[in-house]
């Protein structure tokens, strides 16, 4: 019972921290909405247009999840490490499991908010269509969200300072977004870039979303991409937990 209450309050604490971070709000919610409005105004969607916005939604969703995970989480964690507030928390009976669980739940809550906002805006203004396979899309988005969170936690736990976290997460964010088909199609890029693309987490996300969201395929058809994302989540999450446990418990 106490653990559940811990988890609830810790999740609320983390979610509020994300929502009160004005820069994060701008990158995580405002920019994607503005992009949808710009693209929608330029090309329209559905009957009056060419379904361009439907096609771009997958990229926009991945952009938001990457921004929330890589930028917001990494920088926030590095700052908490640097100012000692994370260490202070771990001098209480707080367990690593509850802390990590709260990070996951807060991030999923943020992702849900992002997804709902962008679909509602897209649908109301430009008639964006709902995903063809909604349950499978939800699963892919949540797994993608957790993979992004884990990458952000690993960066935040490994960087030396909050000052270093910002450029590192920014470079990684843009690299992963750009090479992973999020910002623009790179089908005509040189072969070595296409080879790199096949290993980008964002590539697995957009590919999986393309299958379940755009083509209405089942989750099994995206099993390869989802497995890669789960693997990434486990590896990055383990690195983050190992590093934080080492720093916060006994130095």
């Amino acid at each position: 019972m106490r653990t559940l209450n811990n988890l609830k309050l810790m999740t609320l604490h983390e979610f509020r921290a994300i929502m009160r971070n004005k820069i994060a709000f701008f990158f995580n919610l405002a920019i994607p909405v503005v992009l949808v409005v710009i693209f929608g105004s330029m090309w329209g969607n559905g009957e009056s247009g060419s379904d361009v916005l439907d096609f771009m939604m997958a990229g926009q969703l991945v952009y938001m999840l990457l921004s929330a995970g890589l930028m917001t989480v990494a920088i926030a964690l590095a700052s908490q490490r640097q100012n000692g507030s994370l260490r202070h928390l771990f001098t209480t009976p707080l367990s690593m499991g509850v802390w990590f669980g709260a990070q996951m739940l807060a991030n999923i809550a943020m992702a849900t908010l992002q997804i709902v906002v962008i679909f509602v805006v897209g649908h109301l203004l430009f008639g964006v269509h709902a995903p063809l396979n909604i349950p499978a899309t939800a699963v892919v988005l949540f797994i993608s969200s957790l993979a992004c969170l884990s990458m952000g936690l690993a960066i935040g736990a490994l960087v030396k300072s909050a000052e270093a976290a910002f450029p590192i997460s920014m470079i990684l964010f843009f690299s992963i977004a750009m090479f992973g088909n999020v910002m623009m199609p790179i089908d005509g890029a040189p072969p070595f870039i296409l080879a790199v693309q096949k290993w980008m987490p964002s590539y697995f996300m957009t590919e999986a979303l393309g299958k379940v969201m755009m083509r209405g395929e089942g989750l099994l058809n995206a099993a390869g991409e989802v497995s890669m994302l789960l693997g990434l989540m486990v590896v990055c999450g383990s690195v983050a937990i190992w590093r934080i446990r080492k720093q916060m418990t006994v130095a």
Partner: protein
Amino acid sequence: MAEAKIIARNLTKRYGTYTAVEGLNLTVHAGEIFGLLGPNGAGKTTSIEMMEGIRRPDAGTCTICGFDSITQSAGVRERIGLTLQAASMPETARVSELLELYASLYPNPARPGDLLQQFNLVEKARSTAKSLSGGQRQRLSLALALVGRPEVLFLDEPTTGLDPQARHSLWDVIRGLKAEGRAVIMSTHYMEEAEKLCDRVAIMDHGKILAEGTPRELVREFGPEAAIEIDVTGFPVNMAEIAQLSAVTGVQTEDHLLVLRTANTAASLMAFAGYAQANHIPLGELRTRSATMEDVFMALTGRRLRD
């Protein structure tokens, strides 16, 4: 004798060839305020962190309420409360939210509302941590340390940066913790704080405890001489002659004051009065003082704490 809550034995921490803390031994009992006094870099924070279990010692052990700081840290963390030196807390979180969050982490927490009242933070309950003043942050930090009803409190320089009023207000709170039977260990580099607040004090320098005892014992043992201070501005004095006066053990000037160290205040006063009369020196501003912790620190380390 009350129950021993902190027992540190031979705690040592090295960083390469540099020894931050060497062979620290101390015991703190329930209902006692124990002060670690020393300049910056003396090893106070490292010592406290080893006792808390957040820094692994290279040698030695520490038990808190019978639990080993390192191997039984879960038991320790349920029984301690602590403030970190910089009073670190999530900046965008509200005061009441932080108290509720921390309360949820302990098996038998204090009520956040009671702590808000105790620490005079009711009006700030909806304020974010970053909007608090230095004194309010320290009070919140102490409230967070107390929310788990800890048996042992570690306070790392809790009054650093506070104005005198806020400092005295925090002293009252810490005295209240002692009255409730909690063991309090605090580091400070304020002599007055150690002297007025702590039941026992350990003076640290270069990672070692140089002396330990009640402030009165330390003054008696290491600073036995009283001092007579006379303002002699504008009047020539012969230091060598004054040093020969009755019971005077040393003479020096501090700012514009002539300071006589004496083993017998009355005898030296009488003797100096005679010297002053003979040399036409007015005794306009003259005062005597007993030895202080500052003198003790000077005697033990050869320098002033503020140097």
